[in-house]
């Protein structure tokens, strides 16, 4: 255990010497400070009902914007509720039917052109026109139905939100949405900064002439590998926990509301950081290159993750992708094969807003990736001759 802790402590010492890590800490601190210091509780006035008497504003604002924080809260909440109602699948099927109708129309149009070309009898042309008319009627009905489902879904979602949030004050809503926003900022910053800081940990550990002295000590490779991994992760965890705690206390004092659910976003954020670190560590161990590790980390987070997110969330629903059925099919697979940091972040935000929805799928995929990456990276470390 002492050897394990020595390696953890060494990773901390290493990080303290990295300017990139210090920049990350400064930025995390700046975001925390900005939200903590530059927000204020605003009173709506004496006439307001107690539940609607207060909200949160930026310190330079005198009155809430047209779309206030509590409106924002309701928007987020109703989107999640709508998702929960499972109507999205109905809408997806409706859009699919629309596409099929469109294809039938095109085929019919071709048939009409061909009939005209060969001077087909008038009766045949009339029959085609009749079929086209029927198709158009079906399409109109379908569009109406889709709109109806859509508005019904939103209406029900809004009603559900109203019902569920009847006892929630505006200040609580404003606080929750503010903390969800700060969660987003902190998560993105952590991901971007941590890749840069952590990309050198493993290549540095296994550098020729460096790892020899460590392995010659009475330690096993499991301790060395996980000491390095846990060391890096513990450091970022400590930094994030400090930010979370500072925000929790500051907003608690400011508003008198102690929003414990804010902490539920922390495990999700840390899982995302752990996964990205595992990717970077894996590349670092396989290639021994800090640069490649860094580039891969950013490529995965910025490019692969965006592509996966677009595929998973847009492809099945957006008519833009309707012509590429293979993409829609692939998106179903991608959802279960690739981790999606954005979905994880959205889940973290949702947990701060305290929506009673738990999306397990991105967590399961991320966790599976984490285990696979760590196991394969460790096996490589264990089998390498240095």
């Amino acid at each position: 255990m002492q050897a394990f802790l020595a390696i953890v402590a060494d990773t901390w010492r290493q990080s303290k010497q990295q300017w990139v890590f210090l920049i990350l800490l400064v930025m995390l601190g700046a975001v925390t400070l900005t939200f903590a210091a530059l927000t204020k509780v605003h009173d709506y006035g004496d006439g307001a009902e107690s539940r609607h008497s207060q909200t949160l504003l930026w310190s330079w604002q005198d009155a809430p914007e047209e779309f206030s924080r509590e409106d924002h809260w309701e928007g987020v909440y109703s989107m999640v509720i709508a998702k929960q109602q499972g109507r999205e699948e109905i809408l997806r099927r409706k859009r699919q039917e629309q596409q099929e109708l469109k294809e039938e129309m095109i085929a019919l149009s071709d048939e009409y052109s061909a009939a005209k070309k060969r001077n087909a009898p008038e009766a045949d042309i009339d029959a085609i026109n009749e079929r086209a008319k029927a198709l158009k009627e079906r399409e109109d009905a379908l569009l109406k139905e889709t709109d109806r489902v859509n508005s019904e879904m939103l209406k029900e979602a809004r009603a559900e939100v109203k019902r569920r949030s009847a006892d929630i004050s505006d200040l609580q809503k404003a606080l929750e949405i503010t903390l969800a926003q700060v969660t987003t900022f902190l998560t993105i910053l952590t991901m971007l900064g941590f890749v840069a800081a952590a990309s050198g940990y493993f290549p540095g550990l296994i550098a020729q002439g460096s790892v020899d002295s460590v392995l010659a000590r009475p330690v096993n490779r499991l301790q060395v590998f996980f000491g390095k991994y846990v060391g890096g992760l513990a450091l970022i965890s400590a930094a994030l926990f400090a930010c979370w705690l500072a925000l929790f206390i500051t907003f608690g004092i400011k508003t008198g509301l102690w929003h414990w659910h804010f902490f539920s976003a922390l495990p999700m954020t840390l899982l995302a950081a752990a996964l990205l670190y595992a990717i970077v560590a894996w590349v670092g161990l396989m290639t021994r290159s800090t640069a490649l590790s860094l580039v891969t980390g950013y490529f995965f987070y910025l490019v692969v993750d965006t592509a996966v997110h677009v595929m998973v969330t847009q492809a099945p629903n957006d008519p833009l992708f309707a012509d590429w059925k293979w993409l829609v099919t692939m998106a179903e697979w991608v959802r279960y094969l690739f981790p999606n940091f954005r979905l994880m972040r959205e889940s973290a935000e949702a947990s701060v807003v305290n929506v009673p929805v738990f999306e397990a799928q991105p967590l399961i995929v991320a966790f599976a990736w984490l285990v696979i990456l760590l196991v394969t990276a460790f096996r490589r470390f264990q089998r390498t001759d240095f």
Partner: protein
Amino acid sequence: MELAVETKGLSKTYKRGRILALKALDLQVPVGSAFGLLGPNGAGKSTLVKTLLTIVRASGGSATLLGIDFRKPEARRNVGYLPEGHRFPGYLTGAGVCEYFGRLAGLRGADLASQIREKLELVGMSEWADVKVSRYSKGMAQRVGLAQAMLGNPKLIFLDEPTDGVDPLGRQEIREVIKRLCRQGSTIFLNSHLLSEVEQVCDRIAVMHHGRILKQGSVREIIETVTGGQGALQVRFRTSPLDARARQSVEKRGPFTPSDDGFVLNLPGPQAVTPLIDELRAADVEIFAVEPQHANLEEAFIRLIQQQSDQGVGGTR
């Protein structure tokens, strides 16, 4: 005989057996000895040490360190190691390096602090203890490396080219430290290509070539076995110039090599020296010095490697 290191058929192959780095090595290093491992570049010296310390995984055979199976981490509990071409993390100071490796060795608290002070003092690095390793010269880094290897007062210390990059004065100091460790009862396993260094420090040696041990024993045994020097004696005479008669007479006694200040003669044994001196004195030759010439380790080493090359032995591929 209690052994600090013992290997039985230890082997290491690379590329699925196509490259043989260690060929079924059998080696014994007695406890308390200063053992030198010699060999040309690529002989497998560092690979052997790394294999014993599990930095490189053995392909076959067995070994023990201080009687414990070398694959177990406990086998390294009483072992220190200074690797060749080490690169300690540049963000650590000299004392930080010692602290890190001391903790890995299981030291803590006041014991760790006092040992760090003591070892850095011993290698002459106390004044530089709080300076970052990245600012050290190679010699200074080597001294700190030696200090960390001594932490925990290990019973067995592997030193891979310990004087590499160190100036002559520093080498002398490091040799003194090694001798002191030997006197304190530690077993030293020294990897070096500096034969004179091994000859000065070690009492036992092994010569390695192409992944196999060619010879092992005491320094004297190896020199005598390899050079065939038992009984024969080479003597250097520093004298006034020999006249023709004297030279003719001397040449009859054995192979003669003239030099600027006298000559070198191969005699059948020590008993032949006195009659020769008498004869030279009788011929009015002034004798300034008579020095027996011993074959040294370098000569024995070169001969041994050449013999192996002539016999076409080895080849790691």
